[in-house]
């Protein structure tokens, strides 16, 4: 049983089980950054896009201004329509993977709306099928791009521990993209100033937490978070990104400040720095 007659090609991992922990450890090493100058911003669905013209236009104005200075990769959330299709899908008995697959269309719709508003600046929504592969080309040919923040998990979305909502939504999609492409920063643009001691929409005495680590967030077990909880797992295992910032897009000037590297919301940082 020791010798196989498989036709191997010579490589370091040739006869190794990729499931062996020692082999896994041996694969650690420096990671190449594909787009170290680009910034990733996730524009909230419910928090920004669904709020309509009064919120979106000022955000677009700031983004247009920022595009003169920085290369931006803009992901969009799906917002209320995604919540709605989740509720119908759950009522119809559909599994998590199907919910993830059908919900992708909502964020894509928002991407096209944002892309339409940014088209005077040469920034459009890129179809998901080509977005990843052509991203470096777009970034070097245009001031920025818009994509639906949805990661391509679709039917292959992981069933969550609790309930049936897909755990990898558009915050996760923006995070994973920024990590894989080695981007300079990730900013989540929402309708709250950041993470608070309690949900500020329910408790007006809630206080803003300017900076916090993944371990601290886990320890304090907040009842809600202003970002997808799976980001904690992803940040823990990130090699290139060591933080992300949540900023309030209803104060659009903060988007520019965040890109300048200023601390204007909540910074969540990895513990291994």
């Amino acid at each position, binding site marked *: 049983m020791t010798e196989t007659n498989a036709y191997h090609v010579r490589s370091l991992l040739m006869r190794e089980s990729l499931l062996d922990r020692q082999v896994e450890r041996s694969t650690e090493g420096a990671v190449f950054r594909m787009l170290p100058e680009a910034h990733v911003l996730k524009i909230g669905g419910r928090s920004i896009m669904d709020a309509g013209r009064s919120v979106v236009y000022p955000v677009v104005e700031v983004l247009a201004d920022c595009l003169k200075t920085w290369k931006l990769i803009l992901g969009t959330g799906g917002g209320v329509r995604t919540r709605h299709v989740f509720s119908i899908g759950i009522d119809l008995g559909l599994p998590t993977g199907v919910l993830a697959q059908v919900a992708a269309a909502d964020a894509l719709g928002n991407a096209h709306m944002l892309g339409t508003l940014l088209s005077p600046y040469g920034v459009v929504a890129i179809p998901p099928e080509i977005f990843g592969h052509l991203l470096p080309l777009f970034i070097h040919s245009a001031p920025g791009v818009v994509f639906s923040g949805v990661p391509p998990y679709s039917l*292959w979305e992981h069933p969550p521990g609790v309930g049936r909502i897909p755990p990898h939504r558009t915050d996760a999609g923006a995070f994973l993209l920024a990590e894989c492409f080695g981007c300079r920063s990730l900013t989540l643009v929402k309708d709250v100033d950041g993470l608070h001691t309690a949900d500020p929409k329910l408790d007006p005495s809630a206080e803003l937490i300017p900076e916090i680590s993944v371990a601290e967030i886990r320890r304090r077990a907040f009842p809600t978070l202003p970002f997808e909880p799976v980001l904690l797992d992803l940040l823990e295992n990130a090699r290139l990104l060591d933080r992300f910032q949540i900023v309030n897009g209803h104060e659009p000037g903060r988007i520019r400040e965040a890109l300048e590297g200023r601390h204007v919301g909540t910074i969540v940082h990895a513990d291994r720095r």
Partner: protein
Amino acid sequence: MDDLLTDLGQALVEGSLSDQDLLARTGGPLPVQILPEANVIKVGGQSFIDRGRVAVFPLIEEVVANLGRHKMILGTGAGTRARHAYSVGLDLGMPTGVLSVLGTFVSMQNARMLNYLLAKHGIPFIEPAQFAQLPLYLAERGAVIFFGMPPYVYWQQNPAVGRIPPHRTDTGSYLVSEVLGARSMIFVKDVDGLYTADPKKDRNARFIPRITVSELRAMDLQDVVVERAVLDLMENAQHRRSIQVINGLVPGNLTRALEGESVGTIITVD
């Protein structure tokens, strides 16, 4: 209140998706089984397809013999060329997401090769974008082939340790069986199933015919027979709460596994 929305719908539209109480309400009754008659079969890359004709031809014959008796969704592993690509890619500093793209290409090669061997039986190879046609192909021809890699590409998550994509072809195949509510998930490998150590390296390795995920975790094995992510995902699964790993080099094993017999290692969640 909008009476077009259920209470849950209203809560989802207004509430936070990080709220555990709200999430708990989204569990509902078990999801529908989309293809309850289908069996998902993962054909190993390094462990099987890389062995060439001697391993693959008898398995193909066995698949053909089961057409009309069992519906089969065949996923392919990647194998030795993926290991080569990962090795070179790691040396060049490729991030995990790029390694995932490379792994996808190799499992796609294997899927295409199996596809040509089964073509005369009218069995198609489908990419993720064609999964909407899967039910038709399965109803008409009784089997389809897909590449086992989940289509995460650049969005593949980093592993906790190292840089090899943690969600590879075992995971991609398993998730297909879970989301479709399939009848079984069978991993075709070149070993009889799970051992206490890698039987290719350790002659004292002991065979384990049946085990739960929690027992498996407690053993804290250096090496396991399926991707660890499969075990994690099984714990959250709604439907596919058992898998079987079989030795496809033994004629008849696949058929017996399709009949529901235990011929390898069955891993379950409690």
